[in-house]
């Protein structure tokens, strides 16, 4: 399907153009998510997109599915309720670095721990964009933000390691530059019957870029290309991986899914009756 057909099929055209700044990576990430849904030929009526608050979370409004734009940080908690109450729904959570790892950090680790069948795509732009450039849990140490005027003293989270350690059964990272790989990761994440976490590295030229002298949108997009290396290549040629950030599929070990486990209890009780 070409892009304009994709837009017609899966987007609420009347809600476009989106609110994101020129040069923002979020549009590409949103495109990758929809591309993955299309590749998998999922029934749009059964898809529920849940988002929190922040730049990334505005994506849900543009996408023509069952969409739920919740409170800040709570997308995964709402999504857990939706999935638990109706396990036949395909639930995706679109969230940001602040949304899912600061205010919503608790929900992230527990959704991962339960291995509930939700695919989470974290748009990571290393900053709170919507409120104007404050440092987030993924802002690198020594970077600047409006609330880190002397440089950030916090140590950033590696979101993928966090999700994996908490129990996610599918974990991957790619960037807005590698849109095809990102699409594949989202597809695999959806296919995994369990909790999948995909970190989609995006860029914020308006706040993060400007504050940190990262150049314009094109420069930043170049970084999303040059600073990353696929884990498979890095394993074969470690010399190429020096000072690069790993991307690709980090973890893929399916385990029994949460709502299926619960269904077993229901079935057992039914048998006893």
């Amino acid at each position, binding site marked *: 399907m070409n892009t304009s057909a994709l837009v017609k099929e899966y987007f609420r055209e009347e809600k476009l153009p989106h609110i994101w700044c020129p040069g923002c990576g979020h549009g590409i990430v949103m495109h990758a998510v929809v591309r993955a849904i299309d590749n998998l030929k999922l029934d749009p*009526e059964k898809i529920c997109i849940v988002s929190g608050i922040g730049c990334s979370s505005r994506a849900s*409004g543009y996408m023509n599915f069952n969409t739920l734009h919740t409170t800040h940080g*709570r997308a995964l908690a*709402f999504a857990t*309720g939706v999935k638990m*109450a109706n396990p036949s729904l395909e639930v995706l959570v679109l969230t940001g670095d602040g949304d899912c790892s600061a205010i919503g950090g608790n*929900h992230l680790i527990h959704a991962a721990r339960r291995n509930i069948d939700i695919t989470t795509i974290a748009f990571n732009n290393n900053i709170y964009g919507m409120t104007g450039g404050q440092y987030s849990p993924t802002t690198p140490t020594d970077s600047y933000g409006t609330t880190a005027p002397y440089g950030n003293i916090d140590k950033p989270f590696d979101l993928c390691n966090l999700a994996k350690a908490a129990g996610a059964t599918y974990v991957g990272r790619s960037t807005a530059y590698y849109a095809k790989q990102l699409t594949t990761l989202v597809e695999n994440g959806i296919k995994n019957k369990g909790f999948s976490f995909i970190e989609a590295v995006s860029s914020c030229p308006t706040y993060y870029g400007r504050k940190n002298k990262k150049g314009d949108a094109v420069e930043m997009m170049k970084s999303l290309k040059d600073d990353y290396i696929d884990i498979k290549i890095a394993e074969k040629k470690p010399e190429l991986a020096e000072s690069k950030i790993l991307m690709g599929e980090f973890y893929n070990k399916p385990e029994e899914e949460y709502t299926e486990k*619960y269904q077993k209890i229901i079935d057992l009780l039914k048998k006893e009756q």
Partner: protein
Amino acid sequence: MSNKIKLLQGNEACVEGALAAGMEFYAGYPITPSTEIAEISAQKLPAIGGHFIQMEDEIAGMAATLGGSLAGKKSMTATSGPGFSLKQENLGYGCIAEIPCVIVNVQRGGPSTGLPTSPSQGDIMQAKWGTHGDHPVIALYPNSVQEIFDITIECFNMAEKYRTPVILLLDEIIAHMREKVDLSSVDRIKIISRKRPTGPKEGYLPYKADEDLIPDMADFGTGYRQHVTGLTHDVTGFPSNSPKVALDMMTRLMKKIEINKEDIIKYEEYRLEDADFAIVAFGATSRAAKDTVNRLREDGVKAGLFRPITIWPLAEDALIGLSKKVNTIIVAEMNMGQYVYEVERVACKNCKVEFYGRIDGQPINPDEIYDFAREVLK
């Protein structure tokens, strides 16, 4: 003893009522003194094909409850004091996005961790004003185990009928005491479910209200695609900054409760026919007040009890009527004075309003209200 008549704990009766009303989903977090509601829901829901989940915190409990309702299931959560505070933001979300659900708050001594195992009625105002912004609130407060069963069903009915979160206030005393309940009372209550759209799926307007000001609500996954947001939105469900849209949305939210006050507001009047002296009390305190009224009557005082069952919206007309009839109203509540302010607001033009409160974690007993009443009557 018929098998419908049981000795049940208040919290147990709450779950029985919820199940009778059609609850299929519960999400919550353990907290004293509401925990039994979660425990019994965990035990009973899977047996009927429903779902229970213990979330990672109170906030998530409220969020998941809303999610469950959007997926089409009648949903409930229960909490106490600190947990009720944590749930407030998402409770507001439920109000603006018009998501039916029931939130039980078994009140305990506060503020903060306060007196976890002791009763209180300190959340009367929080029930109305806990979340930010203007919003309508329905809050009911039964006073017996039988009534907990019946009123829990009513709470679900109102939530579904008016597309709004409904707060069920309990206190540690009525939640933990055991009393006789006749579960067949459900046969006298009509079970109500939300209006769902039946028209074309294309062009479904999730917030376009009918004449009754309540929009039809589609379950996720049924083909009526919709966008649900906590942002101010128009009839399509999409956010808008238009002053007119904001005004229209807010006006309808408030009005849908306002015009149905008669259906929502419930109260009990006890020995008020010829009364010139009234006690206003709710929950466990109203039971003490009833004993006090009887004792005052034995003394020859024309005393009566007004017991609001619906705390919010305020039973304003009934209270004004009461104030025109009696010379004095005593408001007795286990707090430093909350409901009394509302009574003063509507009644002080017509009669004297006195307050009796208690905040030491001990229930208000009939003797102390009697002594206070005697003092006031001097």
